[in-house]
């Protein structure tokens, strides 16, 4: 083996030209005549000018439109948000019924039959087969909810929903009302600027919305179950609120949790999976269980 260090002995060789050509054993190339540059410039100018002219879209024009790849039709259907509320009171559950719209409809000056008059809106308790019919006190007020004054939804019970309206597929739904949220015994600790407690998590609850009531304000937060049966909550608040008076716990069922967390497609031309939890239509039929703890 020989090692050479030739820092000072190399002489530059200005005679060589194109390295790549030399590597292939080809002769160096000569400079091109000026007229060729003019031709090249002319062709490029013509190409780019054509591109500029023929690609025009003036601002008042709608612009180039997309082309269809997969034929996709609008599927009409009822659209609902129904909540069964297990709060030891009758008449607090509701179902809002309207319909899905084409894009042209929703931007029109008046939408016909936006909230179709349903033939029936019935909620049936699976355990005892009791059926509750929901109605709207004023059918002409489209945003008015369907309600039932007698249903006192029971935590832990299962209910089925069925809605029929002329011209629409029958919409069905199913919900399991979560168990009433409870604190772990002796877990509640209140300090000047913090409240700590533990929630006994039940599998029927998928999310908890918590409310801390003060004399003149309400704070809220959301907690999600983690592995295990206990959810620890440490909640800081400003001492200027005073002492908390009540702690409100609401447990949301799977449907309401998924629907409430589903991505909202308000960015156009963007795919989002639908967060609907019903069949034969759109929307959600869910439930919550409410508990209030006096502090």
């Amino acid at each position, binding site marked *: *083996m020989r*090692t*050479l260090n*030739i820092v000072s002995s190399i002489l530059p*060789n200005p*005679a060589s030209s194109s*390295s790549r050509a*030399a*590597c*292939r054993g*080809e002769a160096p*190339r000569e400079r091109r005549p000026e007229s*060729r*540059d003019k031709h*090249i*410039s002319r062709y*490029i100018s013509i190409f*780019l000018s054509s*591109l500029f002219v023929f*690609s025009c879209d003036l601002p008042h024009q709608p*612009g180039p439109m*997309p*082309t*269809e*790849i*997969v034929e*996709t039709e609008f*599927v009409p259907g009822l*659209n609902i948000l129904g*909540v069964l509320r297990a709060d030891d009171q009758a008449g607090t559950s*509701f179902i809002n019924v*309207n319909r*899905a719209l*084409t894009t042209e*409809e*929703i*931007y029109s000056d008046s939408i016909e039959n936006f909230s179709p008059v349903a033939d029936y809106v019935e909620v049936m308790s699976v355990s005892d087969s009791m059926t509750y019919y929901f109605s709207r006190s004023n059918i002409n007020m489209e945003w008015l*909810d369907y309600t039932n004054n007698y249903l006192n939804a029971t935590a832990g019970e299962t209910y089925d929903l069925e809605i029929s309206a002329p011209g629409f597929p029958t919409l069905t739904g199913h919900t399991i009302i979560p168990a009433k949220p409870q604190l772990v015994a002796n877990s509640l600790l209140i300090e000047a600027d913090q409240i700590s407690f533990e929630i006994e998590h039940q599998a029927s609850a998928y999310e908890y*919305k918590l409310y801390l009531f003060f004399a003149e304000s309400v704070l*809220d*937060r*959301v907690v*999600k179950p983690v592995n295990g049966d206990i959810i620890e909550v440490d909640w800081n608040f400003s001492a200027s609120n005073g002492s908390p008076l009540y702690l*409100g716990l609401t447990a949301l069922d799977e449907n*309401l*949790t*998924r629907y*409430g967390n*589903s*991505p*909202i*497609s*308000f960015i156009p*031309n*963007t*795919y989002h*999976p*639908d*967060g609907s939890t019903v069949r034969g239509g759109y929307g959600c039929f869910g439930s*919550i269980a409410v508990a209030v703890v006096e502090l």
Partner: protein
Amino acid sequence: MSRTMKIMAIIIGFLALSRPLQAGDVTGFVLDAQSGESIIGVNVFIKATGEGTASNVEGFFILRHRGDGRVELTFSHIAYEDTTLSINLGRENQFISSVVLRPHAIDTKAIEVVGKRTTIIKDMDISSLQVDPVILTEIPQLNKDVFKLIQFSPSVTTSDPMSPQYYVRGSDPGENLVQMDGMTIYNPQHFMGSSAIFNPYSIKNVEMLVGGFDAEYGGRNASIMNISTREGHQSEIHGEFRPSISGISGAIEFPAGENGTAMLSGRTYTDFMLRVMMGSPNLVMDYNAAYQVLLGKTRLRFSGFFARDYMDYSVDNLMLFFPEGLFESFGEGFITNTTNRALGVKFNSVLLPMLTLEGQVYHSASTVDNLTYFNYSITDTAEDFTAALDYKTHIENTIGENTGKANLAWYAFWNQTVKLGFEINDIFFANEVGRFDADPNPNESGAQFQSFFVQDKLELGPLQVKLGLRNSRSQAPGSAGQLRPGKQGEWHMEPRASASLRIPGGHQFKAAYGKYFQYLTTMDSKGDEFVQFLDYYQSLEDREPLHSIHYIVGLNGPLFGDIAYEISAYYKDLQQLYRATYSSTVVAGESSALIEGGSGESYGFEILLRGEFGRLSGWLGYNYSRGFRRYPSILDGERSLFDADQPHNLKSILLFKLTPDIVASSTLQITSGFPRTWETGMRMHGTYDPLTNSTGFFATYITPERNNVRYPARFAWDIGWKKKLRSGFGFNLAEYLGGVDAYMTMTIRNLLFLHRNPVYYFYIPNYGYYGFGAEYLPSISFGYSLQF
């Protein structure tokens, strides 16, 4: 020991004990006479015969035995003066520790550099793009951003003009690997894709392998981008200083001790308009440091890197422009906090003239915390109706890596190059999505990726063949030596093969085959976040690794004059893919990404013309490519277009030397439109408040199918102009500050401003759908840079 490993050990032993049948090869390093930096791509050839080789990314070359006797060995590079060395070739191997070349005056050669150095293709690499960073400085409209540059490669497509994510030959963005000095960088883009996180001054070389990469490379299936940084000047202090109204960028390289060099670079930017007008604090910074020392025949290099992006943006300050009381509540904005860091040491040692050893140990990590929100509430008392929206996304993602790797290269008999190597990565993942009011509770996991490879390259006259085998697997940490139950704990073989045949006339035919495995994936948040500009890494845990098989053929050679051509065609069988989306995750109620398995395929062909024609230089490329996916949740598992399917792409970068001091440049892209989802209608989505037992509604789109339309073709044309200053204020300022050169640049973007490249289509009542573009007017910008 597995059967495969035993066979490999026997082969290696046989080769090791074999006596060389032919000796007399020449190896060595080629260095810059002024700075001492190694020079990449130097042609080393025997003047009489023209046969030769080229120096690699370390500046190392090996010239195989070419007979006996005294020969003139020429070292040639477009940016340097040709140099000739007279040596005696014999049966002994020779090692030349340093061959120094003196640089040309760069100004007069800039345009030639772009045409000839821009796409240096190594002899065996069938699909690679190697770029001299001088192109980043000569084309101001690239904004010195390496990721803007690679978008002009015919192998690269995008799916969102505002997102920096790129797709290589039909693969997903999460299958691209970016490394700086051998260290993986997980999120190599600054906020909103404004630029790469690498200071352009510090970049010495950019090499991108887009397919057919050999057994030495692994961990990602689509592309490998290797960014090499400068080593530092051995005898003088050099650098660059670029002030602007929004920040400062600087770099300095200098000798550091005996046989040592160092380089420091940094950039810090803030948008003052956002701070003042919107009350939004924001910061973008990146810092890079490197120290290299030569210890005998070993080069030791220490590298460090840190980048941070922070912005807290909200429109609260704009509310004063709205009528008071219009909204009951309103909030819109985002908070993003991203850090990137890497620290490592690398050595490169010539053990014997025919035996080199490389090794590296490094740590790299990326942490991301992105929160976006948009909420409002308006009550129409007449209709007793409340319009309310409460939209939020929150993605927290951390990936960290500790890696050790090494490879041994033996330049053996029969013109063989045998390589052996291994790599071990300890990876840590932590991610959480959809957390708003709760305390952090990320899903943490870890894995150890292990791989080793063996590869042999043979030269048989005009035919070169490279055969390699990479073996890889993923294990849970702490269980070394024990296979984790499940599919990832098994070893996966990745055979790689490529061949190159020189054809009379200077043409070369190439073919490659490879099987690739990848043990992590990324989450897709397009459409959930307004723009996805980061990758969110997810562990595949106990799932089958991503894997695909690639077939590539190609032909390249001279076309006429100084114009060369390259044609390549590829087919990828994407046998196992994964899709993790934010949308699906929140619907499922998971705290970490929900991963869905699928498959796909992609194919296409590419044509590239490059070179020099008079005063014009650059490249023109066209590619036809298609990509498809199959996922159970999309079109019920039927074949669908993937997000970046752009069948036709025409791309060009051209430079024109107006005068010796002025270079004009043009960048042009004409591409097919992106596949997009066209909504069929809208429905009212309710927000329920348990406290008041009340609801609010807002309209949301109905999107039953994904990628059911194709946007129209896109046109983008920018021009730039760079002038070396020889008089005037800028020149005088440079002289006063002790600078060597000063440059002015001007860029005109969006020349085709009368053509709309729609980003979204909105429905306007009584008008119909209207395509909204991102840019409606051309923009002009100026720049000044000082070199010392």
